[in-house]
């Protein structure tokens, strides 16, 4: 039986689509005495009970509550007086007919797309580079990657604000030194595009290590014979990449892309902490928009409706992958 013995930080990918190789075989019933058989019937359910119970209460209940809130007219006044005013689909009608909502949705999708493409392409290149390096250089680069990976989000956000600070920020100084003098005192959070630029650099910088290190770990499991066979067939570097490496890594890349889509689309702390969705609410992505409408402007019912629509958009973005996962699980179990 193939046992995975090397596991470099089993990221979420390990729990998503597993590499071919060792799907865990379903456990056989314990070779026990007949007397023990009766317990085994209920045992799995008892073992799962705590996990299911807390998930149902703490995740299921807020989901249901969110659904209920989204059909209510619930603002500051109703909240304080504990009034429940049902207003049917008004919140949805208002949201779906507002230009703001569609603008923010489009913005979120573009934002997610740009980030995920950058993360996957650069992460893959860095991962392949790791595979090519000698052991000393690989260690050096890994240390840099792990540092970026391990930086807590809010700490990283604060550091990026300092790097991109208008005065005394390193980025402006470097741009100025390189001859772009108009950037000497540039205010990065002054407009939509440059604010998004900072957020994107931050997110991509933090996410590449996960992709690169896991991809490198995956390449180490590619059997060398495959490359030898490709070389015998006269394949060059590019050909052996397209015929051996890429097909082997495809499930990994698919799983990681999907995780990154979810992760970037939901990113709240980075977007909110850099500039609170400003300037002029122009850098709000859907989660931040729902938060600011719901909590900031105290339209709780409206915020709940936007939240629910956000979940729908997220499901739409990831539906392709979800289908694959569900099919995959069927084969595996």
């Amino acid at each position, binding site marked *: 039986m193939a046992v*995975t013995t*090397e*596991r*470099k930080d*089993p990221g979420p990918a*390990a*729990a*998503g689509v*597993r590499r071919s190789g*060792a799907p865990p075989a*379903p*456990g056989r*019933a*314990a*070779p*026990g005495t007949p007397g*023990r058989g009766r317990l085994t019937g209920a*045992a*799995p359910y008892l*073992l*799962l009970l705590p*996990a*299911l119970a*807390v*998930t149902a209460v*703490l*995740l299921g*209940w*807020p989901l249901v*509550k*969110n659904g209920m809130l989204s059909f209510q007219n619930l603002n500051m006044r109703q909240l304080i007086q504990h009034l429940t005013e049902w207003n049917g689909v008004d919140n949805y009608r208002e949201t779906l007919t507002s230009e703001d909502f569609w603008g923010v949705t489009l913005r979120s999708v573009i934002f997610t797309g740009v980030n995920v493409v950058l993360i996957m392409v650069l992460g893959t290149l*860095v991962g392949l*580079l790791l595979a*090519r*390096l*000698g052991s000393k250089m690989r260690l050096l680069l890994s240390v840099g*990657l*792990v540092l970026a990976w391990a*930086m*807590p*989000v*809010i*700490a990283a956000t604060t550091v*990026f*604000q300092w*790097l991109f600070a208008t*005065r*005394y920020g390193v980025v402006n*100084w470097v741009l100025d030194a390189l001859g772009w003098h108009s950037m000497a005192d540039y205010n990065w959070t002054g407009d939509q595009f440059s604010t998004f630029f900072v957020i994107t650099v931050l997110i991509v*910088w933090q996410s590449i290590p996960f992709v690169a290190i896991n991809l490198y770990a995956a390449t180490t499991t590619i059997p060398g014979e495959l490359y030898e066979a490709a070389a015998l067939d006269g394949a060059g570097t590019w050909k052996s990449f397209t015929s051996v490496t890429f097909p082997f890594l495809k499930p990994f890349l698919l799983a990681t892309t999907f995780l990154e889509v979810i992760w970037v689309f*939901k990113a*709240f*702390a980075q977007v909110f902490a850099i500039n609170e969705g400003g300037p002029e609410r122009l850098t709000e992505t*859907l*989660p931040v928009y*729902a*938060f600011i409408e719901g909590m900031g402007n105290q339209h709780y019912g409206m915020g709940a409706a936007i*939240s629910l629509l*956000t979940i729908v958009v997220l499901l739409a973005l990831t539906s392709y992958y*979800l289908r694959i996962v569900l099919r995959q699980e069927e084969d595996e179990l």
Partner: protein
Amino acid sequence: MKRSPLARLWPNATAVVLFIGFAFPVYWMFTTAFKPTSDIVSEDPVWFPTAATFEHFQKAVDADNFWTLVGNSLTVTVSAVVLSLVIALLASFALARLRFKGRRGFLVTFMIAQMAPWEVLVIAIYMLVRDGDMLNSLLPLTLFYMVMVLPFTILTLRSYVAAIPKELEESAMVDGCTRTQAFIRVIFPLLAPGLMATSLFGFITAWNEFPLVLILNKDPEAQTLPLWLSSFQTAFGDDWGATMAAASLFAIPILLLFLFLQRKAVGGLTSGAVKG
């Protein structure tokens, strides 16, 4: 196949440039935290500080409630991780080793729960916690953080359990252990790397969580470090030395944990357990 020195130069040069790119923000955070203010607000950046000061750290630590918040963050994070590990151990064992009706459904449930968009459920959670009169308390935070990391913990531990050869348990059971004893004596010790890896993830998630605590705990006494750090800059304006010292203090535990557990989580899972 020997590569010429020139062919090796490119990857190595790229690696050095990338190392600088990834490490620089972290380097800049720490050096800024130690630099005298005159070096921070200088027209040209001081790349390699020569003088070090602790005044910024002093300022960060003296900020209101700092130690209370450290206590809060630790309490919430550690309790959430421990709770989720206990619950996940039971579930992952069932999912990896036992065969029963609905197993696939449970797996899929946890896979979907892993995608839960907590960031957009904050309004509903706020309402529930408010109705339960639990705002400004650490208990709801702990429970929600536990559930946030639970699906991942279950799925990851499951693959660790599945990777442990069944022969180990079986031989223990042949030697007269019950299934539970076999689990405690044989599997549990071999799960150490898996427990390390998953608790690392859980710790980081809970330590960093921002939107939920932002809404639930307005009382400064009941907040956690991420909030403190994000408001720090507002409070201290352009005092980048103090802000970077605060960021460093927040990041150090995670960086250390990462470096320490990374090594533990890697390596032979059952090496030496079964002599082939």
